[in-house]
């Protein structure tokens, strides 16, 4: 399994991304109203989807950590939050680029955009908390608590377009989107999903190694405390 992710996933992800871009840019028809500008949907929508998936994983890790503490869960929580934040930022940025020609402005205070901005800032706070707390155990518990509290925003982002019915269109589904557009959207979504898994695995490995280094470090360093010297075998 580990070998599959290391060896096979990167080419699969790159291939899917290239295929999705080819179909999205060259094969799919331009939108009747928005024209060529609409093609940004094939990357904007998957990026936000994947961000929500990663941050939902972060919520699951946070809850799991509080019930069953483990460095692996904590490292996975760190990895998912960072990758979710990355894809979320990409999605919001692409949305702003699309908003300029379509709505005439880069940013409106539409509920969808506002809740997405709140998500980005909330998880930046989460990342800052992780940097500001040195004790690994406290950091893990506190970031789990903050991860749970921040996750309240995620369902609000998803349903905001249904609840408020403002500028941002409602979620696209295969029933509402033309089949010629659904295929590139699906391919791109799987490409982004593959990249998300890749990034998370990579980041998770780094986080886990950091954690091991942090937890192991005090014993391996020379110290003046008598107890620590006895356990380390330095009489």
């Amino acid at each position, binding site marked *: 399994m580990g070998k599959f992710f290391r060896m096979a996933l990167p080419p699969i992800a790159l291939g899917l991304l290239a295929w999705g871009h080819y179909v999205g840019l060259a094969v799919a028809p331009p939108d009747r109203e928005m024209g060529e500008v609409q093609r940004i949907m094939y990357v904007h929508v998957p990026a936000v989807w994947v961000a929500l998936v990663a941050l939902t994983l972060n919520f699951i890790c946070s809850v799991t950590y*509080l019930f069953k503490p483990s460095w692996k869960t904590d490292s996975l929580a760190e990895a998912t939050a960072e990758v979710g934040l990355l894809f979320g930022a990409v999605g919001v940025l692409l949305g702003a680029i699309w908003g300029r020609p379509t709505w005439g402005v880069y940013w409106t205070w539409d509920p969808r955009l506002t809740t997405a901005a709140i998500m980005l*800032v909330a998880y930046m706070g989460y990342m*800052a908390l992780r940097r500001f707390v040195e004790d690994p155990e406290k950091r893990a518990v506190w970031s789990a608590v903050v991860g*749970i509290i921040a996750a*309240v925003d995620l369902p609000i982002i998803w349903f905001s377009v249904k609840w408020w019915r403002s500028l941002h269109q409602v979620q696209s589904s295969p029933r509402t989107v033309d089949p010629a557009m659904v295929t590139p959207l699906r391919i791109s979504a799987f490409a982004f999903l593959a990249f998300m898994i890749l990034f998370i695995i990579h980041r998770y490995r780094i986080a886990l190694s950091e954690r091991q280094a942090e937890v192991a470090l005090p014993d391996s360093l020379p110290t003046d405390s008598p107890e620590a010297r006895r356990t380390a075998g330095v009489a």
Partner: protein
Amino acid sequence: MKPSKPIGLLRASFVLLAKDLLIEWRTRARLNALVFFALSTLLLFSFALGPDTKLLERNAGGYLWLAILFASTLSLGESFRVEQENACLDGLRLAPADARAIFLSKAVGNTLLLVVLGGLLIPVMVAIYGVKVTLGIGSLLATLVLGCMALAAPGTVYAAIASNARARDVLLPLLLFPLIVPALLASAKGMTLVLQGDPMNQLNSWFGLLGGFNLIYWGLGFLLFPRVVED
């Protein structure tokens, strides 16, 4: 000796709240600092925006809530700083009381302090921004209490976290501000309606939003707080 009954959650919260209020009453340091901080914030808004009376009057509700929000970060941080001295928080945890009682007492205490602060700021706002309370004292008080509750619940959890972390003065606003946006929006809109009248009857929907926000975050804080202060 009779085995003593463990102290109940509500009673423990009440005792802790009384302790916090007594400390506050004896020193009055926190409330004094907060009032002057919030007052100068209110004044600064009018200086930064120029003497445009119409603009100030229209946005008075928003300025009031921003002043309360900025003051609340001071107040929330302070509420746990007193427990950091002489390791008082460890003492509280060793007492045979529920850790959730600490949350309830701190959150209720912070709410009370912010409501008092708001109560002192409103007359000033009425004077310097030239607004009048159109909907009456009842709606005004309801907006104030609901809004302060919404600031206090997540703020108490985050203040407990930030008080132990490095760069605590940056961390609390960094964590709290994004979270508080819906509550700030609802409180400011509600306050504006209270001040300018509510012909479309929208106030209740903002109260609904604040009520839902309070329900979620008081519940989450109550459930999660024991994990925050455990060792």
